[in-house]
Structure formats: C-alpha cells, structure tokens
C-alpha cells in the first residue's frame, strides 16, 4: 500500500468536507472563528486516530454480524473520553463547540473510515488514513472559518486553547463598519460552503482537463 497516496488522498481527492460532503454539520455550524475551526479539526483528528487504530487492531476478531454495533460502541466511547478531556482542559473551546463535540460520534467521517478502511487494513496504514482524512477535514473547516471570521467580524485571531487568555495572534483587517455581518449567520455559512465547493469543482475539472491533455500529447 502506497502510504503517501493514502495520506494525500484524504487531503485532496477524497477530502471529506469538500469532495465527499461528509461532516458538513460541524463545517457549517462552528466555523465562526479560527479557534473553533482548529479546535474541532484537532478533536476530529485525535478521535479518528484512536478509532481507526482500535478498530484496525481488533479487525480480525470482530464477528461480522455485530461489527457495526461494535464500531459504534468504540466510537461513542472514544468521543465521550475526548469530551470529558476537553471539558477539563480546554473549557472555553468546549463551551463554544458545545453540542458538536458529542456529535462527533455521528460524524459520518468516523464511521465511514472505520468501515471502509480500518476494518480492512493494518494499524499503520489505518493511522495514516486517519491522519490524512483528519487533516483534510481540518483544511476544509479552516478555510470556512477563515473566510467567515474575516468577512463576518473583520478580525483574525487565535487563542491558546488551554488558556483562552493567551492570544497567539490578532489581526484587525477589516474595520467594523465594513464588516459583512451575514457571514456569522446561517445564510453566510451556506453561502461560504457553496462557493468553496464551486471553487474546488472548478479546480478539480481544470486539473482533470490538464491531465487528459497531457495523456493525449503523450500518445
């Protein structure tokens, strides 16, 4: 198995948010700030790493008839643990992400990767897949948060998630009067994702065309 291919696929060709349209609920709901975007992304990466590893570990012992319930139990347990850890060590982030932390359980990406990859591959590859998919997801929601926070509040900043009084950086780019408030709201969320998807579509078809032309030239 080409490990690099597996890793890159999760970020580009099989990007969960922008190409496969999985995990859209958090992508729309919490992307109002970069703090949220990166926080949620990291949470999902950690959950994915854990669930893919565990399920890959036991993949040969799970009786086929009960594999989905077993996967669900494991995923729910991992998310519950992450939820408790976040409430303890990153309380601000935990409050702003709110219900979407426990909702990671039903994020289609997690069960999807467990079923499609981790149940059929060894641990190392499963972890690479988890990392790739997780980063792809994080990329998608980071783009969303970046646009929405920039256009909606005019400010770009990042806080330390363990101690929210520490600010890593803050750029006030657009003055308050010119801020397009709607980006902080549902309408803006749908709009941003819609346009992002359109841009990705345009890029993918341009790349495909380029590759097809190269093939023709090579003949």
């Amino acid at each position, binding site marked *: 198995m080409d490990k690099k291919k597996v890793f890159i696929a999760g970020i580009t060709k099989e990007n969960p948010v922008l190409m496969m*349209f*999985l995990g*859209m*609920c*958090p992508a*729309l*709901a919490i992307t109002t700030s970069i703090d949220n975007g990166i926080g949620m992304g990291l949470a999902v990466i950690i959950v994915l790493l854990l669930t893919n590893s565990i399920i890959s570990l036991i993949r040969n012992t799970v009786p086929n008839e009960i594999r*989905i*319930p077993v996967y*669900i*139990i494991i995923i*729910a*347990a991992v*998310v*519950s643990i992450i*939820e*408790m850890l976040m409430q303890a060590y990153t309380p601000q982030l935990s409050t702003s992400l709110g*219900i979407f932390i*426990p*909702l990671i*359980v*039903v*994020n*289609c990406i997690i*069960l999807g990767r467990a079923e499609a990859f981790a149940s059929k591959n060894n641990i190392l590859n499963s972890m690479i897949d988890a990392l790739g998919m997780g980063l792809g997801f994080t990329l998608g929601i980071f783009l969303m948060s970046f646009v929405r926070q920039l256009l909606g509040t005019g400010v770009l900043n990042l806080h330390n998630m363990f101690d929210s009084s520490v600010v890593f950086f803050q750029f006030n780019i657009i003055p308050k009067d010119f801020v397009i408030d709607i980006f902080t*709201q*549902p*309408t*803006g*969320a*749908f*709009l941003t*994702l*819609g*346009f992002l*998807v*359109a*841009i990705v*579509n*345009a890029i993918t*078809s341009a790349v495909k065309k380029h590759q097809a032309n190269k093939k023709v030239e090579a003949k």
Partner: protein
Amino acid sequence: MELFGFAISFILVKNIVLTQFLGICPFLGVSKDSKNALGMGLAVIFVIFMSGIVTYGIYHLVLIPLEIPYMRLLTFILVIASLVQFVEMVLKRFIPSLYSALGIYLPLITTNCAVLGVALANIDQGFNFTQTLVYSLSVPIGYLIAIYLFSTIRERLELSDIPTPFKGNSIALIMAALMALAFTGFAGIA
C-alpha cells in the same frame, strides 16, 4: 398555549436545518426528489420523536440514579441505532417502495446529527417531560418542512442552466443560504 409558542419557535424560528445546522447530509442527499424527501421527513419524525422520549427516560431513570451520566453518548447512540433498525424492518415489510427509494439514506438516519442532537438537547436544555415531547415532535416537523420545500426547489433547479462549477451540491448550498435567509423572516413570530 405556551407550549404552542414553544413548538412554533422550534419549527420555524429555530429551524433545525436552517439555523442549527443539524441534519445537513440527508438534507442535501435526499432532497433531489420531493417524494423521497417527504418519505425521509416522515421517517425522521418518527425516529426523533421516539428516540427523544426513550433517551430522556434512560437518562433520568437509569443514568442519573446510577450516577453515570457520562455513559449517555454510548446509550443514546445504541438506542437510536436500534430504533432505525426497527424502522428499516417495518418499512421493508410494509412499504417496500419507500424502503428501496430511500436506499442507503435509511440506515444513515442513525448518523443524522439531528437525531442525536435532539436527544442531547433535551438533556442540556433541562427540559421536563412535556417540553421534551413538544421539542422532539416540533423539531422533526420543522425538518420535514425544510427538506420538502428544498426538494421542490431542487427539482426546478435540475431544469435550469447552471454554470458547471456550481452544479450539484454547490448550487444546492447556495439555495439553502437563500432559504435560511427567508426563514429569518420568522424571527418575530414567536
């Protein structure tokens, strides 16, 4: 009367899809055909209403007395998965046409954020039993309205000339943006 205002606010003002962003995946996936959207909406009403009640009961009658509230995710998701399995079996037996029309989207109701979302919200917002009943019923009704309206728009969209990059989910999302905007008009009602 107060419960009615309660219900209206969750159906329209705080519509689960257009304001809370729960249930997006099937919202985009099933809404290409209005008949399927209707079927999906009705199935979701049943699942959310039943799971809302059962999970509420389990939380307050089992988890809290045993002092294991942290088991809620595990137990809730197992309840939901079982309920969906049950609905699948019933539909397969009694309405096979709907069963095959919904296809993969039927078992995917288990991972519909709206279902688990409602179960968790009933607890987090501290509802009593009556409020839980109303919430668990009005939220999916709002979902049905949103998904049905959306599907009728999308059916029209199929016949329009759309620039290539926007085809598919992109234009659907932009349409959803306009719907969300329209729904903010309800803000004054309740």
